[in-house]
């Protein structure tokens, strides 16, 4: 009876203990190590880093282990941890033109300076379950080639030289930080890109897909997709120059989009941009399509009512930590509100019945 | 009619110009509107009459010119002042009633909204006023709790008119109020409008391509072509003795029909 509501504290403890047991699974099976997750579940680790907005493969792997493989839960753990980290400063912008590329493909040119580099991609694998992986096995070494000595130029840079693509609009000197200042709408492009890069991969993917199907169509080509490592540098005021403090792996996608031109501008191509931490190719491409769709206003295009064009819609709903929290909160007790509704419905029904009886 | 000042026009429009890139929406339009006067703006589609109206009503910002409301330039108004004007002294009747009504709100709520926006807080009084206005636009009182989506096109338009006139605006903008309605429904609506304008002493700027509408409603006419005003004058004068070739064409094409 009423006492059953009591005992929340004990119930929580028991639930946590049970959860820990479930997380471990059958103790007869060896426990996963964080290093195993980091090395062998690297794409999951990358997604958690990207959406968690924290570049730390070990912590992301730990979060995945703790979250029993629920990646949104792992993102959430990383975000909550990130809140407690002190901020020492900002790095210089990373230079993706100087990226040591593992993969670099262009859909717009057959060949180009720096060449097409397939890299470790699923693209041309046949999606057949490889039952050999059910057993432990050695992987034969992949063939190697000497790394390119020269930096690989951006494809859009090649188009830019001929004026065929819009000049990159100059942005604010220091972009606002989504995690340090409240998002106010309308948001500029730098803020939109920040929101998209930490946005839910599934949500951004679906929005991008919707633009391809005609809801805010942007006629995108992948001008270039590159994955590799870039140096992170910080200025040290005491030294007067920048010092490299490490490397991060990034995925960058630049789309080249049709633009009819306007009365004042001759036709030229326009850009969509995606940059995601880690190897997160699907996300980077999706992001660049959505970025382009959101730019309709500055490019003088029509708002067709497509969800991907509506920045308030996109930015308010792309964050999976916000979404999952709010969605799941409806399982919390609401009996006070429900009681209020119950009384209202009873009263209204009683009044309606009285009215009907009076009428008869 | 309070505040009517017979020495100063209610609305004075000066050199109003709106461009869309290199294309002209309307150019150098100027006129005065006096209290109680109905001004008709006619022209074919693309003549700039709708652009002009939306600039006047503050829905678009003109590139040049001035719009003086009782001597004050509306273009210099703050957003707050502009919105206050739009829910108080001004009203706007859209061609498509869906643009001017809340389709998910009952007829009574639609008429009552402007009353509540200006601070009325007595449900019974709001409802009585709404009922009265539904009657004046010939909508049966028992439809007060129905949503406009259950109404015919003509009823929706009459509801939109009631919703706009309930707070006693002094200036009403109308954009093709009879457009999109059947001919018989049009006639009834026109009749109703003429009665309301006369009874309430409204000042009206009405845009239409239909000369029959202005013949019935407007005191004065402004004929527009390619964004420019080509002829102005008293309605009967312009329609019976058009001076500009374009007006002559417009009038003759109507007469032939």
């Amino acid at each position, binding site marked *: *009876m009423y006492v059953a*509501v009591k005992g*929340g*504290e004990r119930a*929580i403890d028991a639930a946590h203990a049970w959860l820990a047991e479930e997380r471990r699974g059958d103790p007869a099976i060896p426990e996963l190590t964080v290093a195993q997750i980091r090395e062998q579940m690297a794409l999951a680790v990358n997604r958690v880093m990207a959406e968690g907005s924290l570049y730390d*493969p*070990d912590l992301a792997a730990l979060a995945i282990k703790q979250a029993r493989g629920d990646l949104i839960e792992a993102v*959430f753990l990383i*975000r*909550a941890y990130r*809140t*407690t*980290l*002190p901020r020492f400063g900002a790095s210089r912008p990373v230079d993706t033109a100087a990226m040591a590329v593992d993969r670099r493909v262009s859909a717009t040119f057959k060949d180009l300076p720096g060449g097409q580099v397939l890299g470790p991609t699923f693209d041309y694998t046949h999606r057949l379950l490889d039952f050999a992986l059910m057993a432990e096995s050695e992987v034969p070494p992949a063939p190697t080639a000497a790394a390119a000595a020269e930096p690989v130029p951006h494809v859009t840079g090649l188009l830019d030289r001929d004026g065929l693509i819009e000049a990159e609009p100059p942005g604010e000197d220091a972009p606002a930080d989504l*995690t*340090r200042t*409240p*998002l*106010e*709408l*309308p948001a500029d492009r730098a803020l939109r890109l920040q929101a998209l890069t930490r946005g839910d991969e599934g949500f951004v993917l679906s929005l991008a897909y919707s633009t391809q199907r005609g809801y805010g169509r942007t006629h995108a080509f992948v001008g270039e997709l590159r994955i590799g*490592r870039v140096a992170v540098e910080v200025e040290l005021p005491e030294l007067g120059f920048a010092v490299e403090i490490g490397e991060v*792996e990034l995925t960058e996608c630049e789309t080249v989009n049709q633009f009819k031109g306007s009365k004042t501008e001759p036709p030229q191509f326009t850009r969509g941009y995606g940059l995601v931490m880690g190897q997160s190719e699907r996300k980077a491409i999706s992001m660049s399509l959505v970025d382009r769709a959101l730019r309709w206003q500055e490019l003088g295009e029509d708002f067709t009512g497509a969800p991907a064009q509506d920045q*308030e819609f996109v930015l308010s709903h792309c964050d999976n*930590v*916000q979404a*999952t929290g709010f*969605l*799941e*909160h409806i399982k*919390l*007790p*609401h*009996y*006070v*509100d429900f*009681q*209020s*509704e*119950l*009384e209202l419905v009873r009263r*209204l029904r009683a009044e309606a019945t009285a009215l009907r009886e009076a009428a008869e | 009619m309070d505040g009517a000042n017979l020495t100063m026009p209610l609305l004075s429009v000066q050199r109003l110009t709106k461009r869309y890139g290199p294309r002209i929406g309307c150019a150098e339009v100027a006129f005065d509107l006096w209290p109680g006067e109905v001004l008709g703006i006619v022209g074919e589609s693309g003549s700039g009459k709708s652009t002009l109206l939306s600039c006047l009503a503050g829905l678009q910002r003109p590139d040049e010119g001035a719009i003086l409301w009782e001597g004050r330039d509306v273009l210099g108004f703050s*957003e*707050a002042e502009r*919105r206050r004007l739009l*829910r108080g002294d001004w009203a706007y009747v859209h061609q498509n009633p869906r643009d001017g009504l809340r389709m998910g709100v*009952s007829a*009574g*709520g639609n008429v*009552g*909204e402007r009353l*509540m*926006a200006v601070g009325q*807080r*007595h*449900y*019974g009084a*709001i*409802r009585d006023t709404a009922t009265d206005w539904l009657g004046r636009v010939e909508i049966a009182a028992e439809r*007060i709790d129905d949503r406009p989506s259950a109404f015919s096109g003509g009823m929706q338009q009459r509801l939109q008119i009631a919703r706009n006139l309930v707070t006693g605006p002094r200036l009403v903008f109308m954009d093709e109020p009879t457009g999109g309605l059947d001919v018989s429904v049009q006639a009834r609506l026109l009749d109703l409008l003429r009665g309301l304008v006369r009874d309430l002493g409204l000042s009206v700027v009405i845009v239409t391509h239909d000369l029959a509408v202005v013949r019935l409603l407007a005191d004065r006419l402004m004929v527009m072509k390619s964004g420019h005003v080509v002829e102005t004058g008293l309605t009967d004068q312009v329609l019976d003795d058009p001076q500009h070739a374009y007006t002559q064409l417009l009038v003759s094409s109507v007469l032939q029909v």
Partner: protein
Amino acid sequence: MSAPRTPSRAMPPQDRAARPGNRPDRKGTAVSDYNFAYLDEQTKRMIRRALLKALAVPGYQVPFASREMPMPYGWGTGGVQVTAACLTPGDRLKVIDQGADDTTNAVSIRRFFQRTAGVAVTERTADATVIQTRHRIPEQPLTEAQILVYQVPIPEPLRFLEPRETETRKMHELEEYGLMHVKLYEDIARHGEIATSYAYPVKVEGRYVMDPSPIPKFDNPKLADNPAIQLFGAGRESRIYAVPPYSQVVSLDFEDHPFVASKADHDCDLCGASESYLDEVITDDRGSRMFVCSDTDFCNARQAAGHRGRLSAQEVA
């Protein structure tokens, strides 16, 4: 990628407020390597600035840079951040959800602050200096020495009339609240009364229309002229707002359909109170039910003082 790292780097930062000697405990009895009340001092200052602004402009929603907290959005992250920014080591905290101290989410949040701030906690309304609440205002009148922190899911009272933030901010700015009354009008036209039973909109100090969070409308009168500071935190929506002590808070209504703070037409079956908000509890599958105070502290205190309700005998037995 990055070199193997030492475990110590993965630990939360030490802060001056963290007490030395405590190590993180995986069982979670003391996680004092986090700063006092979890948030770093910079973040707390940012929140306090927002709180001051909110108190200066009663009912106005102040945007703040909401942080990701270790509990989900929608589960009180806004309230938790506000509480964290208000707490001092000498505070005594009470946390309630649905009026009760031992509902699971209240337990969870109370534990969070026990762990991260080490503050004293209490279930007694009178003893608390800070009370974080979800969906209720305690029955016992509050004092000037207390802060009531509300968890808010959707801070915007106009949200379900107008989904766009850009538009609703403008409506507040211009005091365009006609639409809010249209909704109330529609309620009366359809149901004969205003069919909003919780999160009932109020106007604060004659200016801003405010969502009082999903408290039952029974609690609305307690918002007004309250000696305590009332703070509202919406984490997911990054908004803070406030009702300063002794503020005018008016529930929206019509002159001829005045606001009525209603509750179930019963007395509490445990303590006999007739003036408190009641939960309905279904006691079997044949339609039997009992009504008990939703404010557990209020009910317990009355029972301790000897008050009895219809079913008290059963309870005792």
